[in-house]
């Protein structure tokens, strides 16, 4: 196996006495598209937030190309620029236009010139179909458009991997498709993606690996064919029976 981008070892997270993540182990290889599925409240989002250090893990290690990101001397800004994040609630900067949302972080964090940053931003906005709306403020566009712009913002940092935290859960049903299409194209382009999702079709058809979590633990970690076709753990099967309509 190649050198993993991210390796998580014995990760656990407690909020007070409530253990949300229990001894999580897995690694992310370049080019993998991993879907993390499971019922709400099993720690899927917390896992992503720990990987980006928006939450401090209680114990365990997270390695980025073999370097421990939790050791105090690590260049966190660089790491966060290289491992992007897309949020359920979009979190576009409300005071900036769509274009500036993609430009300002590049200039501040990667020290790119304005011309270079704008060129890169426009390229990615074009990719997600938002280049025409670059002068709009976040309050002036729809949820699906916001999420596509947020994806362009993450891409503008030239990340090695992007973490998606339930990117379509806050969207109206008719807007989910446009965001999933963008994500599908990204997956096809070879971007490494770690996606917490309730979209079972995405998990089954687009990702090349699926992690099923329950009560803060990884229950099963396998290819979508195995998880959706013939899961080894009964709990996975029970979950999928509830999630997927029978008539298929």
């Amino acid at each position, binding site marked *: 196996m190649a050198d993993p981008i991210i390796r998580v070892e014995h990760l656990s997270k407690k909020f007070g006495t409530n253990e949300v993540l229990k001894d999580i182990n897995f690694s992310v290889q370049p080019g993998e598209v991993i879907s993390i599925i499971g019922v709400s409240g099993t720690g899927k989002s917390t896992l992503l937030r720990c990987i*980006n250090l*928006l939450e401090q893990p209680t114990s365990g290690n997270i390695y980025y190309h073999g370097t421990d990101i939790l050791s105090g001397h690590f260049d*966190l*800004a*660089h*790491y*966060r*620029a290289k491992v*992007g*994040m897309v*949020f359920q*609630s*979009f*979190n*576009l*900067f*409300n*005071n*900036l*236009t769509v274009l500036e949302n993609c430009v*300002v*972080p590049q200039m*501040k*964090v990667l020290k790119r010139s304005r011309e270079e940053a704008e060129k890169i931003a*426009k390229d990615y906005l*074009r990719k997600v179909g938002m*280049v*025409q*709306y*670059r*002068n*709009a*403020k976040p309050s*002036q566009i729809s949820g699906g458009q916001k999420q596509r712009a*947020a994806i362009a*913002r*993450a891409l503008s*940092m030239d990340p090695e991997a992007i973490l998606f935290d339930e990117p379509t859960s806050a969207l109206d049903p008719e807007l989910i498709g446009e965001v999933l299409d963008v994500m599908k194209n990204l997956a096809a382009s070879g971007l490494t993606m770690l996606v917490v999702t309730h979209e079972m079709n995405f998990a089954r058809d687009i990702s090349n690996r699926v992690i099923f979590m329950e009560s803060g633990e990884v229950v099963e970690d396998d290819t979508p064919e195995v998880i959706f076709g013939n899961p080894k753990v009964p709990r996975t099967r029970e979950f999928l029976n509830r999630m997927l309509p029978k008539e298929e």
Partner: protein
Amino acid sequence: MPKTFWEWIPFLWKSYWPLLLKGAWTSLYLSFLGTSIGFIVGLLVAIVRTIPDPPKTKKVRYWVLKVVKAFLVAYIEVFRGTPLMVQAMVIYYGLMKFASLRLPLIVASMVIVGSNTGAYMAEIMRSGIISVDKGQTEAAVSLGMTHWQTMSSVILPQAIRNVLPSVGNEFVVNVKDTSVLNVIAVSELYFVGKSASGTYLKYFEVYTIVAVMYLIMTSTLSRILKHIEKKMDGPSEYEVLKEEEDENDG
């Protein structure tokens, strides 16, 4: 000699208008400078007070920040908890007594109004900062931006926009409240009114004029501030651009 109220008003205005206008001007620029200083002080105080606590392992940083924050809380308590008029007396005569410092009246006024407004502004700004959605900070952090970069490019522009009505309010309050500076003999509008009314003992008439002048100043200000708010919001519409009309979209 004029007889009725309606004769006195133009008479007094004719005799004292240069003095009254000068007093109004003093009130206006003192409150403008005092509010501006207070705005900057409040902004800095609020920024420091919203720095997240560093981990206890970093002992020096942890304690320095803790002491600074405690000092700032004390500052806010003292200046919000005592009347501006009393602050003026204590600061002006205190400096004279202990530092043998006779500040020019204007400078002293600025220090007094600035510190007083700063205390209120600090809380106004803090409320503005915490009113900005936490997701904004998380997004900035997840992109690798530092605390300062997040503050200056994302949080403060939104926070300041949100508190602009309160900042305008403080300005208007200051136009009126600078009148208490007459206790240290600053010749602002109220003080000028006192001298003007003394000659003919026409208190009611002179202070009616003074009241109208205050009202004109404050209502004009409110209007200007409304306009600035609108400006800050930017255009309410945007143009859907064609794919490649990049170079000529100004």
